[in-house]
């Protein structure tokens, strides 16, 4: 069941999008799409169906916090788990993400095991795995 889940990877650096995409694929989640910022992500989320969002925070046009807020106030999207994967390591940012409804928070640089653990933990918690 979880193998069919569709992921959206949001990051302004294509290198990081490719890394996350490959890691998800190695973890058994091969169905993924990418967006370079919050604006592009919202557009894809509203025009297509996704099960999981992995998002950076520091991005142009619309950052990860703004994207998270938009997702959580949209009735059709607010059920989506959003895992923040970011270099922002201030405690206040982590607390803010949690308060805004992020499903998890990973600081860069991270390992394959960390990403896999967090994704699986969130999916298990949501009953999707």
């Amino acid at each position, binding site marked *: 069941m979880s193998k069919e889940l569709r992921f959206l990877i949001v*990051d302004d*650096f294509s*290198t*990081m999008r*490719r*890394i996350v995409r*490959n*890691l998800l694929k*190695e973890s058994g989640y091969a169905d993924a799409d990418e967006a370079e910022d919050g604006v592009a992500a919202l557009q894809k989320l509203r025009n297509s169906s996704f099960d999981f969002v992995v998002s950076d*925070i*520091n991005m142009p046009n619309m*950052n990860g916090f703004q994207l998270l807020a938009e997702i959580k106030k949209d009735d059709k999207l607010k059920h989506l788990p959003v895992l923040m994967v970011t*270099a*922002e*390591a*201030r*405690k*206040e*940012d*982590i*607390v803010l993400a*949690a308060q805004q409804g992020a499903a*998890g*928070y*990973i*600081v*860069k*640089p*991270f*390992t*394959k095991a*960390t990403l896999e653990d967090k994704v699986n933990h969130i999916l298990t918690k949501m009953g999707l795995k």
Partner: protein
Amino acid sequence: MSEAPTPSSLTTVQVHQQLGALTRQLHDSLNGLGLAEKVKDWAGELPDAKSRLSYIARLTGQAAEKVLNQVDQAKAQHDHIAAETRRIGELIVKDPVAAVAKGHVMNFITDVEQASKKVDDHLTEIMMAQDFHDLTGQVIAKVVTLAATIEEQLVLLLLQTAPADAKVNAPSGQEYVPALAGPVVDGQANQDVVTDQSQVDDLLASLGF
């Protein structure tokens, strides 16, 4: 009317007086333009820029080192597979039945499978090492913004203090607004940041996550 003194004819006292006058003029100009506080900010940010550049050098160095180490190990595994392939090939040519019956072929298959897994792990590590592009890119963007801000303000200062007949309109500079903090370049010096994933997990756990 007395001639302006040439540099060689200036006394030490005169040099000091002129330096004092220049310093006062610069101080007054900065104050007049409301730049004094900005200069203080720059002074505070320049060491930060230095540590950010050091961070870039460190991170790129570590990434290069990691990639080269992983390539060395992957090549060793690859050499092992090549050597074993040659060896099993010779055994099969010599006596195909014995090669299978004695388990050489099966051992070879198991060996190749394990070596391939190790090579795949090394390739994953090489891929992960490329995350330096994202992390250093964010830091470089911050240093570039700082340099651009200082340049803009210095040009503004120059234009404002130039003789009247040399004045041109200053370009409208954009206010430097620090955005998100970006990668932690010196976590030990800042108690407000986390330095690894376990600290993130602890913080989230304390919030009930």
